[in-house]
């Protein structure tokens, strides 16, 4: 139980252990602890920043949405106005076209009436002539009364 040279051996072992711990064990471990602490702090800060950015983005999105709504409302109003205008325009055009068609038809009808009149006149004159021929018979010489006949037919 007495103190002896074992003491010296133990002191040497102890010194070596402390030296080794001081040189190779403590610094890397404490450094990794510190680094991790820093990393976690940075991560938390980044998360907070991200949250803030999300908040901002949400705000922006909301304002954009409102703007878009307003714009679309404007566009719709414009489109309705334009559609109304178009309807009015086409109404006008249709009216004019109808009138034009009506006029054309009237003109045609008039023309046809004239034509019919003309052809009727010719037929009547021919009929009248033939009737007169039949009535008068040979008494009337075509060549003699040619002048009178022409006058009559012109009067028709």
């Amino acid at each position: 139980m007495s103190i002896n040279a074992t003491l010296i051996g133990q002191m040497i072992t102890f010194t070596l252990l402390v030296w080794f711990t001081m040189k190779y064990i403590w610094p890397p471990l404490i450094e990794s602890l510190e680094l991790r602490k820093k990393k976690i702090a940075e991560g938390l800060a980044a998360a907070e920043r991200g949250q803030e950015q999300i908040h901002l983005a949400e705000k922006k999105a909301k304002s954009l949405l409102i703007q878009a709504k307003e714009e679309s409302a404007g566009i719709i109003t414009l489109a309705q106005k334009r559609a109304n205008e178009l309807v009015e325009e086409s109404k006008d055009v249709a009216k004019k076209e109808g009138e034009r068609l009506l006029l054309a038809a009237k003109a045609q009808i008039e023309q046809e009436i004239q034509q019919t009149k003309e052809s009727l006149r010719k037929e009547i004159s021919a009929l009248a002539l033939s009737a007169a021929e039949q009535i008068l018979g040979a008494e009337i010489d075509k060549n003699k009364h040619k002048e009178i006949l022409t006058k009559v037919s012109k009067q028709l």
Partner: protein
Amino acid sequence: MATEAHAAEGATGYIVHHLTPFSVGEGFWTLHLDTLFFSAFLGGLFIWFFKTAADKATTGVPGLMQNFAEMLIEFVDTQVKDSFHGHSTLIAPLALTIFCWVFLWNFMDLFPVDIFSTVGSLMGLEYLRVVPSTDLNATFAMSISVFCLIIFYSIKIKGPWGFAKELLFQPFGPWLLPFNLLLKLVEEIAKPISLALRLFGNLYAGELIFILIGLLPWYIQPALSFPWAVFHILIITLQAFIFMVLTIVYLSMAHEDH
């Protein structure tokens, strides 16, 4: 079973046998080979564990080993930061080494008392005492090393003259100089002695009780050795912790300039 094996020498023989170190040499130059071997082996275990953890250390998600190592490191670091308010690259690693090494020494106490001596006797070793902290040489080696550091830092921080002044003029002023010196010397020398004897006494007594339990009939042994072992888990950790904390406190006192 051991009781029968040593029946010839009786209970005293059994106890003495278990508490005698395996030694070579004569007089002062006696070496307790078992103490030297086991403490170096346990120190190697400590170094191996922490070196592996340090090599694999990552700032990312730590593994089980690194987690455990970091837990111990943080625990020791907190203790050091609580009582030492300077900057020192030595104190924290020193505290870690002391805590782990003493804990491992003490832990050997929890192995059944007959295992190692039986294995030793099979290997032809007449005596084998496996708990280094039941050897005064081991505890004193540590406390004397700490004492040397206390003196070294006292002189380094306060200067030789400052340290001498503290020894001579405190606490009662220059007129009671011899008395101051005596008081201070006792105070300083009490530090390593109390450190070493506290650890030695606790572990020696604990080991002795395990040996005494080993003397009882086998059917009574578990009823006593189990609670004592559970209680001992507390003691071995506490003793390692006390040694570490006192070392930190003594060294921070050495760093303080009055």
